[in-house]
């Protein structure tokens, strides 16, 4: 039962400065699958994920979404995709709820305030709803960003080390969230240096850069 690939990369190459990070990268990802991008620090994982989002453009090759280059189908692609990078993308002066409200507005959905609040509560931020993000702890800010991901309702999630700063409960929560998303037919491309237990879902791995290099 091979489902057709939804997201695929063809002969992708990436260079930063005058260093070539990878060349000839291929992969294909179908609905319900998770792609775990692996590699040590500085091997080019973040660079790869940014290529996949379309924020930067590859030195060679192309990324396709449902068989079309993402450059050509940008609008659809960005409607279907949500990205969480090393930076949280939340405004320090706004409360978590306000942050989610504007994120929804900017990606063009209706904002569902009760849903947003319940998501934040589910992520353990019940006591922080009225605080500006500036005073939140490191892990709490990461949680706000994760809440934004959940409320975005995207099909494809591109997550760059989503577990950064999360405590053990947080990690377990993210695992269950990922499992739900995949079971509902979502796609995930992610990186992490931490161990993750994801049984019962289809996980592919992709190695970036040389393995022995730090």
């Amino acid at each position: 039962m091979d489902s057709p690939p939804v997201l695929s990369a063809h002969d992708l190459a990436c260079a930063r400065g005058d260093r070539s990070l990878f060349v000839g990268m291929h992969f294909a990802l179908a609905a319900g699958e998770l792609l775990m991008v692996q590699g040590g620090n500085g091997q080019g994982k973040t660079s790869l994920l940014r290529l996949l989002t379309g924020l930067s453009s590859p030195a060679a090759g192309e990324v396709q979404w449902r068989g079309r280059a993402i450059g050509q189908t940008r609008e659809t692609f960005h409607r279907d995709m949500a990205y969480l990078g090393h930076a949280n993308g939340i405004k320090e002066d706004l409360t978590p709820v306000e942050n989610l409200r504007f994120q929804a507005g900017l990606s063009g959905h209706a904002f569902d305030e009760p849903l947003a609040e319940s998501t934040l509560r589910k992520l353990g931020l019940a006591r922080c709803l009225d605080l500006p993000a500036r005073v939140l702890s490191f892990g709490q800010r990461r949680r706000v960003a994760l809440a934004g991901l959940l409320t975005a309702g995207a099909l494809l999630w591109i997550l760059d080390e989503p577990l950064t700063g999360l405590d053990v409960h947080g990690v377990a929560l993210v695992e269950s969230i990922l499992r739900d998303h995949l079971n509902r037919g979502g796609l995930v491309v992610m990186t992490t240096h931490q161990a993750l237990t994801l049984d019962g879902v289809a996980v592919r791995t992709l190695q970036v850069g040389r393995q022995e290099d730090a």
Partner: protein
Amino acid sequence: MLGFLLTVIRRDLLLAARRRGDWLTAQFFFVMVVSLFPLGIGPEPELLKRIAPGVVWVAATLASLLSLPRLFADDHRDGSLEQMLLSPEPAVLLALGKAVAHWLIYGIPLLIVAPVLGIQFALPAEAIGVLVLSLALGTPILSLLGAVGAALTLGLRGGGVLLTLLILPLYVPALIFGAGAVDAMLAGTGAEANLSLLGAFFVLSLIVAPWISAAALRVSME
């Protein structure tokens, strides 16, 4: 489309409201620059009247320069600019919305205090009218072109000063037409010619600048 534009604008307005100090700085600077000239030059009314349009316009330009470096920088740093560029809506709307928000925050207050400054310099009422009109047409140009500069210098060191170097030459026509309109009014030759040039320049910037800012934003994110 429109919803996206409005969200961008509302978001910036809310953020500005949370940090009131920022825009007060620009206003205060504007008033201060303008008020300092009588102190430095002396109280001759005729002289002051002569330099008033130029001084007000230069002060408006400088006040907009003060605020521009942060137009995209904060969003860039905390990653929300990335998120906005990943929106399904076109980046040109983002650039436009940012420029509009900038104008609402920094341009409108200038329009409001300008008549007071005009009175300080003993400008006749109709000249004050032209002054406000010229600022109303001209300050959006400053915001639109300024957004281009802000996008180009995003993430570079020495942001504010470099930005100034890049966009002051672009501001020059607005300055000349704007101050020229009031001068012409004072000289009795009628301000229409200058104002319509200013208007044309405004329309041109409105059409061209957001595209260039959007392209520059994409380039800066690479």
